[in-house]
């Protein structure tokens, strides 16, 4: 088992899938000559050439749509957005073209395309460069959405996404790219739609994904010092959602806190709370709590930004509320 950064794990996934299938190509801003805005595509231009590693102008709507068209023509595009903040410009192609093509063509046209890039806030990038996209894309039938939190999951989920015959949204994280972790050697696939317990526990379930895994794990450490055993459940896939895993954990702990990077209103946590109240009502010992970004555009100021984000302290406080320790 090798220790890799999240960035290099993604790079390995891209490289292996491009070696495996000549129809896979990478397209986006700065993916080629510049080696990737975040160096995820480092070395790929040299190995695969400009035909398969395609630098684009800054035209998200246009190249997202060209990717969709290429998928209609039988290719397997991987479309990189420099960040998901810019993908808002491509929303028409993701929602109206990619997600609906199979359905409105009566099942004729498959859409094996991946849209990927860093999602959510980094540090002090201000309002327009700091938003989490999960709930925007997870709302759309016809899309799959994954949000890996570790290098191993990044590699395994990106490989699954590239092999999938449906459009898959891969939400990465600028703050995750340098994270190191063990990645299994050789063929490593993580199936889409399976959550994973990253830390077992008995008293409360912390549901999280992507960057909030680290937040939840830190919270679990702090809770352990207070003699609370928290189970950390990493969703990994946002759509399809591993409902069975969520329900199973809640049936064991009888309490849950849902942690996410995005805003609270109509967020991913709202969907999970809906699931729990409907299918695990009798198992609950307390109302489910949510920890989200504050319901404001992201401020620039460091202190305000920290106050806006989900944090271990906020998760610990929420967990104590569901345990009636406050």
């Amino acid at each position, binding site marked *: 088992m090798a220790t890799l950064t999240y960035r290099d794990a993604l790079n390995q996934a891209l490289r292996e899938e491009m070696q495996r299938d000549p129809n896979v190509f990478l397209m986006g801003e700065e993916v080629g000559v510049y080696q990737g805005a975040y160096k995820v595509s480092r070395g790929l231009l040299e190995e695969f050439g400009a035909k398969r590693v395609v630098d*684009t102008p800054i035209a998200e709507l246009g190249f997202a749509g060209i990717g969709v068209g290429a*998928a209609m023509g039988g290719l397997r595009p991987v479309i990189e957005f420099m960040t998901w903040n810019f993908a808002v410009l491509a929303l028409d192609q993701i929602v109206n*073209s990619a997600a609906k093509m199979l*359905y*409105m063509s*009566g099942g004729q046209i498959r859409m094996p395309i991946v849209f990927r890039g860093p999602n959510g806030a980094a540090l002090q990038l201000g309002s327009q460069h700091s938003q989490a996209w999960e709930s925007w894309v997870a709302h759309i039938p016809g899309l799959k959405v994954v949000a890996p939190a570790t290098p191993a999951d990044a590699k395994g989920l990106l490989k699954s996404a590239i092999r999938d015959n449906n459009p898959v949204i891969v939400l990465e994280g600028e703050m995750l790219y340098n994270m190191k972790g063990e990645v299994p050697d050789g063929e490593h696939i993580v199936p889409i739609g399976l959550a994973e317990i990253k830390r077992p526990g008995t008293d409360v379930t912390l549901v999280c994904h992507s960057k909030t895994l680290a937040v939840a794990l830190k919270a679990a450490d702090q809770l352990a010092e207070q003699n609370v055993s928290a189970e950390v459940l990493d969703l990994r896939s946002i759509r399809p959602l591993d409902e069975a895993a969520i329900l199973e954990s809640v049936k064991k702990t009888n309490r849950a806190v849902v942690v996410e990077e995005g805003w609270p209103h109509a967020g991913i946590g709202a969907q999970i709370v809906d699931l729990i109240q409907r299918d695990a009502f009798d198992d609950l010992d307390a109302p489910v709590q949510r920890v989200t970004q504050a319901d404001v555009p992201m401020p620039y100021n460091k202190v305000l930004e920290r106050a806006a984000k989900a944090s271990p302290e906020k998760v610990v406080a929420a967990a104590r509320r569901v345990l009636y320790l406050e």
Partner: protein
Amino acid sequence: MTATARSAKPAAPSSAPPPELHLKMLRQMLLIRRFEEQAAEAYALGKIGGFCHLYIGQEAVAVGALAALRDDDYVICSYREHGQALLKGISPNAIMAELFGKATGCSKGKGGSMHLFDASRGFMGGHGIVGGHIPLAAGLAFASKYQGNEKVCVCFFGEAAVNIGAFHETLNMASVWKLPVIFLCENNRYGMGTAFERVAAVTDIVEHACSYDMAAELVDGMNVLTMYDATRRAVERARKQSHPTLLEVRTYRYMGHSMSDPLHGVYRTKDEVEEQKARDPIAQLAGKLKEDGVIDQAALDALDAEIHAEVEAAVKFADESPDPEPGELFTDVLVD
């Protein structure tokens, strides 16, 4: 502007289609017109729902353009695409059934008038967002070039789409990457009820090609022979040199924007519509063929009657076809 091949006036046919093609094109134009007339009638009877955009008046554009294509070339359209779907070989039955929302429709009743598809014939849809399919056309051409199969993609869109960002982004990339795609702009003068010159700073759409160093041509879309000829040149440029072309085709729709919209009134006069009808593309070609002694009135009437029967049969087929099974609601969202 080294790569531009613009001409200020509609080009005269320099390579006339062979005579047997003339008759075929006449038949195709008549088929589209009669099909659309039946669709209008069915819409009025409530058999067709939603939005239904008819092609009456514009038949020569698609007929001339598609006559210049190989069978396996891609065609992708906006929501005014019944004609192109017929020309790509989807049966009138399957198209009418789709308009009726029936299980026997070419998109299993899930697409409707705006989303006709037959991928096996290279008919890549009917798309409902103005200009949204223009990047898809370049993507199909990108795939052709990548795979080296020499397939050309023709993208039909209306003049109103020229004001959309996707048009400009796509023309730029198609030119930079030298994609085998033809951007065929059907300038019928009105985006719904808005005259193009009221909302466009540059009203000669061919001029936009200059910004993207792209070959372009202004074409008389009421003349099927001119249309065939211009498209043939663009197809050759795409297939042989892998260069894109922008065609601005001047045409006119006789009907309202969709079946829910008026034919004329606040945005155009009845006189204007009648004036345009005097240049009717079907009458033009029929007149020429009669003049050339290729066809007489009796033969023309017989042809028309035969087509009439064909589209009436399509209406009957659509009407008698079943709705999709209830379970179809949840199929085709994702593939396994």
